[in-house]
């Protein structure tokens, strides 16, 4: 019974995706980032832990809201029986439909979020109705932050936030989602690894992330005469000069 039910759910879900792709032009493939042939491209999605975390929050919220709604409905039945029984279909719809929609939305979000990291830039995609793709090159990254709440720690996920120069918005996860100067990698299971990989590539870029040109960054090269070979030669020169002076 279990597998059959799971198969039906999967089939329905696939059908929903197909409809979204066909009628609402939701892209079915992960975003592409132009890259060189030798470049390493990493594609990340929301981790399993994120799904558990959001579902846990969903069940808690569902329990609280539905208990309140059912209590209100029972009160109505108790005090005004004819009206309470009359609105039964409406009450059931209000109690059940949003839960189902929210549950589907969680899975859609789980499957539609992509983080693509190449050696030069990252492209982050999120959203179904309002699809948004952010492209940030490592050269422009000013800092990388990792945020984790207690509940997120329990589920083993973190949020990596990448910031570029410029203001606007706050410092939290919600601000990062909307800000034009931040990139949010939400629900990553290996946050330390992702952060280290990003920072490693950021450190390879030696600009300040503010549009310096490479040729202007090149400093004049100076030879120092502090090497042992140079000192030896200088000693010999001094000796020769001394000898010459004595002869005059």
């Amino acid at each position, binding site marked *: 019974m279990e597998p059959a039910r799971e198969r039906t759910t999967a089939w329905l879900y696939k059908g929903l995706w197909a409809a979204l792709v066909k009628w609402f032009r939701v892209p079915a493939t992960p975003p592409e980032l132009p890259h060189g042939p030798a470049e390493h491209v990493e594609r990340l999605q929301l981790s399993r832990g994120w799904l558990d975390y959001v579902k846990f929050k969903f069940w808690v919220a569902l329990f609280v809201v539905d208990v309140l709604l059912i209590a209100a409905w029972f009160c109505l039945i108790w005090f005004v029986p004819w009206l309470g029984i009359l609105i039964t279909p409406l009450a059931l719809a209000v109690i059940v439909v949003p839960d189902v929609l929210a549950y589907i939305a969680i899975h859609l979000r789980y499957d539609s979020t992509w983080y693509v990291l190449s050696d030069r830039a990252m492209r982050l995609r999120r959203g179904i109705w309002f699809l948004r793709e952010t492209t940030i090159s490592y050269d422009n990254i000013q800092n990388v932050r990792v945020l984790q709440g207690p509940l997120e720690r329990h589920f083993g996920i973190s949020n990596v936030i990448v910031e570029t120069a410029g203001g606007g918005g706050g410092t939290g996860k919600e601000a990062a989602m909307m800000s034009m100067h931040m*990139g949010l990698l939400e629900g990553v299971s290996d946050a330390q690894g992702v952060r280290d990989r990003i920072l490693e590539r950021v450190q390879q870029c030696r600009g300040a992330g503010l*549009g310096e040109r490479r040729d202007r960054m090149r400093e004049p090269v100076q030879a120092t005469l502090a090497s042992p070979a140079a000192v030896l030669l200088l000693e010999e020169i001094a000796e020769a000069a001394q000898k010459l002076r004595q002869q005059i």
Partner: protein
Amino acid sequence: MDPTPGNRDGTRRFDPRNLERPDPSLLKYYGLVSLMSGPMFPFVFIPLYCKFVTLRYRIEDEGIAMSYGVLFRREVYLTYQRIQDIHLTRNFVQRWMGLATLAIQTASGSAMPEMSIEGIQEADQLRDFLYAKMRGVRGDSALGEDAASRVGVQVDAEQRALQLLAEIRDALRQCAAAKEQN
């Protein structure tokens, strides 16, 4: 790269340099957006219509310009080297029409994008064009060579200095030897 939805003839190559006017479907999109405001329709639609009629893009070698406005005119010019974030957003109405909003950010302090390019059917190609020109993408391959050549130059200078010192030493020794003989 698969053609963007709404790109009717796939044979025509998209050249961003020829981009000047937005696609006519942008006006339809503006109409739909205005309809959503209900009774406020004329107040929303007229400014958007003026924007559509006067909207001009100019793509140059070093930067991109966008201008619009009838009474109050504005023109934004961005240099490719200063682009730091590119955001491509599409709501489902825009996807139906094959449109997109391409928001370009520089390092300025404003939370709003410096330039929002609307009404482009080939938004993906335009984004890749801008991506290839934005900073941190073009010059990076030369980074390794650059560092190596710098080290090379330093070694060369050191060698040359040592060579000069050796020449001075030899010249002094010859002087001393010549003096001794006299």
